[in-house]
C-alpha cells in the first residue's frame, strides 16, 4: 500500500475507536510534554548560568602573577616550577606576549592601589582599581546608576554603593535595610572627586640591579611625586564588582587607560622598579579567555612562560559536570513518562488486533499481504506518535511558559530583574516529535508483527 493510503486508513481506524486512541495519544502527549519541560528547563538553566558566568567574567578570567611576588594571588604551584629567582618579571612585554596567545581576548594589568580621595574637602581612604573597557558588560554593573566611563581614558570614576554612603556621611547600621542606590547616586552623579596619589617618576639609573631588590628599596634612585587628579563621578554601582577579592576589594573604579597614564606607585614597584627600567611592571595581569572551555590551555601556556596563574576553572568544570548530570537526570525522567506512554500504545494496538481480528482476516482474504497489514498497524502507531508528539511539545512549551511567567512575577515582587530560564530550542521541538514517532513505531513493532502473522482462516472462522 502507498503511504497516503496507509495514512488515510490509519487515521480512519484511529477515529473508529476515538476515545481509546485519544487517551493513548494523550498519554504520549504527557510523556513528550514532560520530556520537553524537563529538558528545556535544563537547557534554560544552563543558558542562564553560562550567560551569568560569562558576564561575571569569573570563569573566563585567568589572573597572572609573577612568581617573585609571594603575596600575589598565586595559591598553587608555589613549590613547583622555577624558583622565584628565575621567574620572569610581569612587565609590558610579558603582557603583550600573553595577549597574543591563542584564545586570549585581552590581557590587562591589574592596577590597584589605596589612596586618598577628597570629596567636598573631606579626605576619604579607599582601594582603587582600574577597569578595562570590556567590564562595561559585566554583570556587576547591572542596576548601576549613571553610566559607564565615556571613554577608556576620561577622568571619571565609578563608586561602589558603600563608598557613596561613606561620602554622604551615612554609616550603614546593622540590620538596616539596604540603601537605595538611586537615592545615593542623586547627590553624587556629576560631582567632582580629587584623588591624591603618589606618582612613580621614571628612573634611568640601572646600577641598582640586584638579586634581591627588596633590600635595595632604600637605595634605589627613583623619586615619588605627590599629585592630584580630578575625577568626575559618572556612576554608582549597586552590586559589588569585587566581592570575591575580600579585604583588597576596591570601592572606586577608574578607566584602565587613565589609571595607566597616571603611573601611580604600586606595591610591586618597590621591588621591581630597578630591573624594569622604563617599562611598567605589573603586580598582576587579568587575562580574558575567549571561551571558558579554553581556560586550561591558556593557563598552561602562561605557566610555561614562567608565571603563576589562578582561575576558577575547577569550579566551572564542576558546573559543566553538574549540568551534564542534570541533563541526563531530566532526560531520563522525561523519557520515563514517554516509556510508560509507549506501553499504552502497545496495549491499545494489541487490543485493536483482538477487536479487529476479523477485519484483518478480511483484508488478507481480499489480497492484503503481511506487509500491508504490518504497515497499517505501524501507520496507526506512528500517527499516534506524531500527533502525541506535536500536542506534547505544545503542552511542554505551555508548561514552561507558565512556570517562566510565574517565576518572573515572583522575581518582580522581590524587585529582582526578570530572568529567562526557559528555552525550547528548535532542535528540541523536532527531536521530541521524532523521538515520540520512533518510540511509537517501536511500540508498534510487536502488535504489527502479530497482526501480520494472523491466520486469515482462523480470523474469519468465527463470527
Amino acid at each position: 500500500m502507498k503511504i497516503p493510503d496507509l495514512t488515510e486508513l490509519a487515521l480512519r481506524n484511529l477515529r473508529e475507536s476515538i476515545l481509546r486512541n485519544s487517551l493513548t495519544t494523550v498519554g504520549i502527549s504527557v510523556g513528550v510534554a514532560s520530556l520537553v519541560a524537563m529538558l528545556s528547563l535544563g537547557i534554560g538553566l544552563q543558558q542562564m548560568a553560562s550567560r551569568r558566568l560569562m558576564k561575571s567574567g569569573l570563569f573566563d578570567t585567568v589572573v597572572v602573577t609573577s612568581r617573585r611576588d609571594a603575596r600575589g594571588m598565586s595559591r598553587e604551584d608555589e613549590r613547583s616550577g622555577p624558583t622565584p629567582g628565575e621567574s620572569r618579571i610581569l612587565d609590558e612585554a610579558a603582557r603583550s606576549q600573553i595577549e597574543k596567545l591563542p584564545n586570549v581576548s585581552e590581557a590587562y594589568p591589574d592596577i590597584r592601589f589605596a589612596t586618598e580621595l577628597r570629596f567636598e574637602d573631606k579626605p576619604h581612604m579607599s582601594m582603587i582599581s582600574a577597569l578595562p573597557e570590556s567590564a562595561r558588560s559585566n554583570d556587576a554593573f547591572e542596576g548601576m546608576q549613571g553610566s559607564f566611563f565615556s571613554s577608556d581614558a576620561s577622568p571619571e570614576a565609578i563608586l561602589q554603593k558603600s563608598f557613596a554612603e561613606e561620602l554622604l556621611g551615612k554609616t550603614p547600621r546593622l540590620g538596616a535595610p539596604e540603601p537605595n542606590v538611586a537615592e545615593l547616586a542623586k547627590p553624587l552623579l556629576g560631582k567632582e572627586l580629587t584623588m591624591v596619589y603618589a606618582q612613580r617618576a621614571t628612573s634611568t639609573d640601572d646600577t641598582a640591579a640586584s638579586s634581591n631588590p627588596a633590600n635595595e628599596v632604600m637605595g634605589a634612585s627613583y623619586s615619588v611625586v605627590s599629585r592630584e587628579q580630578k575625577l568626575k563621578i559618572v556612576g554608582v554601582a549597586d552590586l559589588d564588582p569585587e566581592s570575591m577579592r575580600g579585604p583588597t576589594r576596591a570601592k572606586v573604579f577608574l578607566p584602565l587607560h587613565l589609571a595607566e597614564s597616571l603611573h601611580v606607585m604600586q606595591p610591586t614597584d618597590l621591588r621591581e622598579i630597578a630591573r624594569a627600567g622604563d617599562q611598567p611592571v605589573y603586580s598582576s595581569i587579568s587575562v580574558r579567555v575567549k571561551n571558558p572551555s579554553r581556560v586550561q590551555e591558556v593557563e598552561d601556556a602562561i605557566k610555561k612562560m614562567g608565571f603563576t596563574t589562578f582561575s576558577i576553572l575547577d569550579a566551572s568544570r564542576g558546573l559543566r559536570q553538574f549540568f551534564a548530570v542534570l541533563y541526563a537526570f531530566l532526560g531520563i525522567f522525561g523519557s520515563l513518562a514517554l516509556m510508560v506512554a509507549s506501553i499504552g500504545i502497545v496495549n491499545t494496538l494489541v487490543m485493536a488486533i483482538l477487536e479487529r481480528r476479523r477485519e484483518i482476516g478480511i483484508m488478507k482474504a481480499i489480497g492484503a499481504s503481511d506487509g500491508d497489514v504490518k504497515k497499517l498497524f505501524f501507520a496507526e502507531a506512528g500517527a499516534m506518535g506524531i500527533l502525541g508528539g506535536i500536542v506534547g511539545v505544545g503542552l511542554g512549551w505551555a508548561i514552561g511558559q507558565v512556570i517562566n511567567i510565574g517565576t518572573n512575577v515572583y522575581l518582580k515582587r522581590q524587585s529582582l530583574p526578570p530572568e529567562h530560564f526557559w528555552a525550547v530550542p528548535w532542535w528540541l521541538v523536532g527531536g521530541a516529535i521524532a523521538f515520540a514517532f520512533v518510540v511509537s513505531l517501536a511500540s508498534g513493532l510487536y502488535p504489527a508483527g502479530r497482526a501480520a502473522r494472523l491466520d486469515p482462516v482462523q480470523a474469519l472462522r468465527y463470527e
Partner: protein
Amino acid sequence: MRGTVAIRSENLCRHYRMGETLIRAVDGVSLQVPAGEFVALLGSSGSGKSSILNLIAGLDRPTSGSVIVQDRDLAKLSREDLAKYRLYVVGMVFQSFNLIASMTLAENVELPLRFAEVERGKRDSLAAEALERVGLKARMHHRPSELSGGEQQRAALARALINQPKILLADEPTGNLDSRTGTEIMNLVQSFNQDLGMTVVMVTHERALAERYAQRMIFLADGKLVDDRPNTPSAVEPSLQGGRA
C-alpha cells in the same frame, strides 16, 4: 478458454491436530475444474467444503498434496506471492458477507485496489462501475450496517470482482439470505460466470441451489470426495427441472 484446466488438486489433504486426535478436514481430494465452469461443492456441515475452498483461495496451505490454479502450485508460493494470488487471481465471497463495518460500500469495494496500489482516480471509477454492475451505485456512500443482507452480499460480489479475477470462490453465499434475495445473488453469480467467463466454485449444502445453477456437482463427506458428476437434466429430479428453464 474452455478446455484449459483452471483448478486442479491432487491427493489434497488438510489435517488438523487437536491434542491426540487428528482431524482430516480434507482427506485426499483430487479434482479438476475446467476454466469457465460453474462447480458446486456439496456436503453436509463439517464435510470439509470450506477447507477445500480456503486451500483453493490460497488462504490456507495443504498438509500434503497439491493445489494447482492456472499452472501455479499454491503450496510452493511464498506468503507474499500467495497474497498477490488472492489479490489478482481469485475473488471471494462468504456466507457472512465480510464487509468492513467502518467503511462505506465504495471504500469496501475499492479496498483491494489500494492493496494493488491503483491510483485514487482510477479506484473511484472502478468502484463505481463495480457497484453499478450489482445495482448499488446509489448506496455507495452508505455503510454496510445501513444495508440489507442481500445488498451487503451484492457489495461483497462487487468487491470480489474489482480486480477482474478469473476465478470466483463463494462459500455459501446465500446461507444468510432468504430464498428471494438468495436467488438475486445467484443470478448475479451466474451472470459473472456466463457474461464475464469467470470460473465459479460455490460451496453450498443446498442441493437444490446447486442443481439449479451449477454445471457440475462435487459431493464431499468426511473430507473425502464421494461423487463428482455433471449437472445434466437427467440427473435432476423432474420437479426442479422446470425451475431451470
